[in-house]
């Protein structure tokens, strides 16, 4: 853990109050913490491991914000930042896999339901491509991109996303629907 829980809490608060600088200070700590949590799983080779962002994010939260019951706060903000960090971890890892240039482990996403007709039943999608598509989406519609980031990389439920972005769950569900369709068009094979 990079900073004491109190500082993380303060930074979360400051960020919640619109201080963007606080986010910059916060991100490395959360990134570090998540990275450490994810590290043992990511480093292992040879056998598949499921990364469960939700579990990681919650565990990181407990560690960062402290377990003292009266101390935690701004969970919504935390989850928002954590999802972003999660995205970075997974993308960095995917890049590291590419950079290794020896067919080392690569982070992929299961797309088995996407192309039902495909013989293998499962296609692997490089997260780097998704990341790039998500970045393009952000240029057009930042909110949708954020929703995908929170749901997919952060593992948050629709309700949690709604809490983080201060939207109604209905709005989140609607936006998610379109964002997903658009991203599918950007990434999936075929016309």
């Amino acid at each position, binding site marked *: 853990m990079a900073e004491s829980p109190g500082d993380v809490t303060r930074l979360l608060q400051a960020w919640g109050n619109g201080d963007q600088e606080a986010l*910059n200070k916060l991100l490395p700590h959360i990134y570090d913490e998540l990275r450490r949590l994810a590290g043992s799983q990511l480093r292992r080779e040879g056998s598949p491991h499921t990364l469960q962002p939700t579990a990681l994010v919650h565990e990181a939260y*407990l560690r960062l914000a402290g377990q003292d019951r009266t101390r935690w706060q701004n*969970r919504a903000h935390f989850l928002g930042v954590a999802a972003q960090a999660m995205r970075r971890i997974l993308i960095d890892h995917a890049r590291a896999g590419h950079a290794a240039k020896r067919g080392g482990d690569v982070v992929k996403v299961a*797309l088995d339901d996407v192309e039902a007709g495909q013989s293998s039943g499962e296609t*692997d999608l490089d997260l780097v491509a998704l990341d790039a598509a998500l970045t393009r989406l952000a240029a057009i519609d930042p909110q949708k991109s954020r929703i995908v980031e929170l749901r997919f990389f952060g*593992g948050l439920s629709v309700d949690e996303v709604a809490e983080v972005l201060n939207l109604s769950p209905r709005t989140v569900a609607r936006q998610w629907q379109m964002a997903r369709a658009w991203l599918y068009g950007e990434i999936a094979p075929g016309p």
Partner: protein
Amino acid sequence: MPDQDRWRALEQLFDEAVELDVASRAALLDRVCAADPSLRAGVERLLAWHGRAAGFLERPPLAVAGEAASGERAGARIGPYRLVRELGRGGMGAVYLAERDDEQYRHQVAIKLVKGGLDTEAIVRRFRSERQMLATLNHPNITKLLDGGTSDDGLPYFVLEYVDGVPIDQYCEAGALDVAQRLALFGQVCAAVDHAHRHLIVHRDIKAGNILVGADGVPKLLDFGIAKWLDPEMRVDATIPAPFRPMTPEYASPEQVSGGAITTATDVYSLGVLLYRLTTGRLPLEFASHQPHAIANVILEQDPRPPSEAEGLNEARRRRLRGDLDSIVLKTLRKDPADRYGSVEQLSQDVHRYLTGLPVLARKGSLQYRVVKFVRRHKTAAAAGVGVLLTLAAGVSATTWEAHVAQVERGRAERRLRDVRQITNSLIVEFNDALATLPGSTATRALLARRALEYLDELAKEVTTDASLQRELAVTYQKVGDLQGLPYQANLGDTAGARASYQKSVAILERLSAGPSPDTSDTVALGTAYQRIGSVLTRMNEPSGALANLRKALQIRERLVKPHPDDRELRQQLAESSVSTGDALLSSQGDTLEAMSLYDRARAIRQALLATTPDDPRLLNGLAESHHRLGAIFETFGDLLADTLGPANATKSFRQSLAHHREAMVIATRLLTNDANNMGFRRLVADATGETARLVAKSGSPGEAVDLYRPVLTSFESLAAADPANQEAGFDLSVSHRDFGVLLERHGDRADAERHYRQSIAISERTLATDPTNGERNLILAGTYAMLGDMLAKSGNTAAAEATYRKIVALGDRLRAGSPPSPSWRIVYGTGVWRLTNLLDRHGRAAEAAVPADAEMALERASADRTTASVQELFNAAQLLLTCRPVGLRDPRAAVAYAERAVALTGGKQALPAFLLVRAYYESGDVDKAVKAAHAALALLPTSFGGLDDAGIRRQLAATLGSQEGHASAVRR
């Protein structure tokens, strides 16, 4: 890319259409898009994708080993080529070694292939662009494009000249090339890059690994995968934020990490890194951390050492590099692209000049560069210098002189403070955590903290006029204090030191708030400082000091909220202050009613704040906490009333307590529902439910209480099972078994109750085995033995009860034997002896009881007779004198004396001794005084519990105390 309006239109139509069936969709689109066929096409495309995207992105990302995937294509045919093995992977595809085996001789090539699943429009576009670039370039040091096409399964590919070589740096090391040979190779690389630049292509990923040298000694530049066409306007690729741009950190230029414009100077920088590596074997910058922000920081801020000063060089190599080559390399690595060579050709020429002994261009102007850089670095100091000159020119009047002093002080102090803050931050951020995991590092950390404090103290002497610097100082002192010993987080355990640091912060902030320009933030910080002193003192078991400081914090926050009634953070702080002050009041024998009203105020504040943010977990947690405290206080009132004035008078109190506990339970459940994986919330729900169940039982529904509690026990069981090594979880489970036993006993289910009591005891004894003198756990175990013994005694199982009580006495003896004796020994021992002697006496063994009872009495009285006796000690002695057995040892008059002293000590504000005094008067036969004292005691409770007249009180006292066996009120733990 569609523009915003178009996107919104698309979105609106999609949202509407997606809800409809196919026929209605068509009708909708016919109606709306009649004049805009491209909008219609866009929506239809989205709808089609939507139809196929079920399940897409619904699952979390998986990390799987990629071996299987990478091997899948070996042996496959692409056009006339057969893939042999994978050579590597890039951002969009993989490179394979391939053979054309339909010819007489085997011709080896490299094939780059888009990976299945990645052939999106954008990737394919980039892939084509790379192919196009390679087709454009024709240079002996760049891999040649041989062929290209589309595979049978529709994936684009291209064929390259295969370079069977090693990365250029390895080649240099392996061949032990001398500097001149290395520079010659580097010159060829420059030629390749220059060629690309002349074709308006920036490579962007020049590094040793992308330059292979074959057996023929010719270096070849490869992988144009992230290369980019330079457009005439040098437009920045703004859609990709800097951290997500592909790059190799070790070779990345400042503009690549900061999101600046990418130009040919970017490649010049990377070539500089390569040159550094080739001449020294090292990289110019060292990355201690691989966090993106840290890498960016190093690249943007850190100046490389000149190559001649790189580590691990022999003296001959140093001499060779010193001077001209240093200048050449450093010029390529300048942070500002404009300070580098204007082109790769210029760099290449300078290297050539060096090799032929001509003066190099890089040295020209390097002095000026250094001066400019110096000034840039010391902007603050330089500005202060200018300030001095100006004031001198204007004539030194008294005021400008003061201003000058302040300014000089500020300049100096600012730098020092920056240093100190760096030190403290690294203490808190880096060293502390890194060291915390190392055994025996506490001394080192303490030393670091002391060093930071020395700096701060010195600085505090210098900073005497500048308010904002003093403010910074105060905040830094607080930080150091947190590090030293803020309870409930990782600290050095130096609570006394923490207190001193906080006090220094307080001193500065008090001065500032009393000064001419007080700032609200000073007052806020002052409140925080007092609050922290309070929690440190609580931890140090100095309740009265804690109370004084917490009260100060409370008063400050009250003052702050008044003019800022809408400041939510201030109100939250006020609520938190109220609760901790209430806690301190109760533990320092303070005013019970005041504590109650503080808790209630916290509750009201939190409730009001929740109106706008109903799901704010911090507030919900706080509200649950307030209700919990209120519930506990009302329960205490109820217990006192039941013991003194009979159970009927306690009903109302218990009902109120129950209402608060129920409310806490509802809130806790809501928190857990919102965040089902949160262990803290699971604890909270279990605790709140347990409290509620107890009050349900006290309110007369023991059956309901048992049902309510059952899942709590299960919950603690699973928490303990999840982490068998966790002592705390085992301890919680033990308490939970006991609490459940109490409820079962109340429900009349003695056999089950006994089973749970015994389970609780077994677990407690097990956890105590590793820590036999733990005071808190011994108290819990003693309490459980007492409950079990009492129940056995009531069931008539005297022998078993006696054995159980003797175990308590034995626990007390064990605690007493420790060196030093555990402070809990008296309570444990007293509980055991009191019960044992009562039991023996009631069963005709008064003689046996007399000795230990007498000894215990002597002990308690000796403590209470000291002039410095605490409220607790006086209370214990009085209670023993009223309830002990043999009855002959009782002395209600002496009890009155002790109780009166206890009441006086609390200023008549605490309910507990006040009620004991009522009883003491009554049993000493002074009913009038007892009635009077009862009025006084009742006045300490909320007014709603009054309403008894003298006659009523008399009746209740007679009914409750007159028949008292001395059994109901056990010695309170």
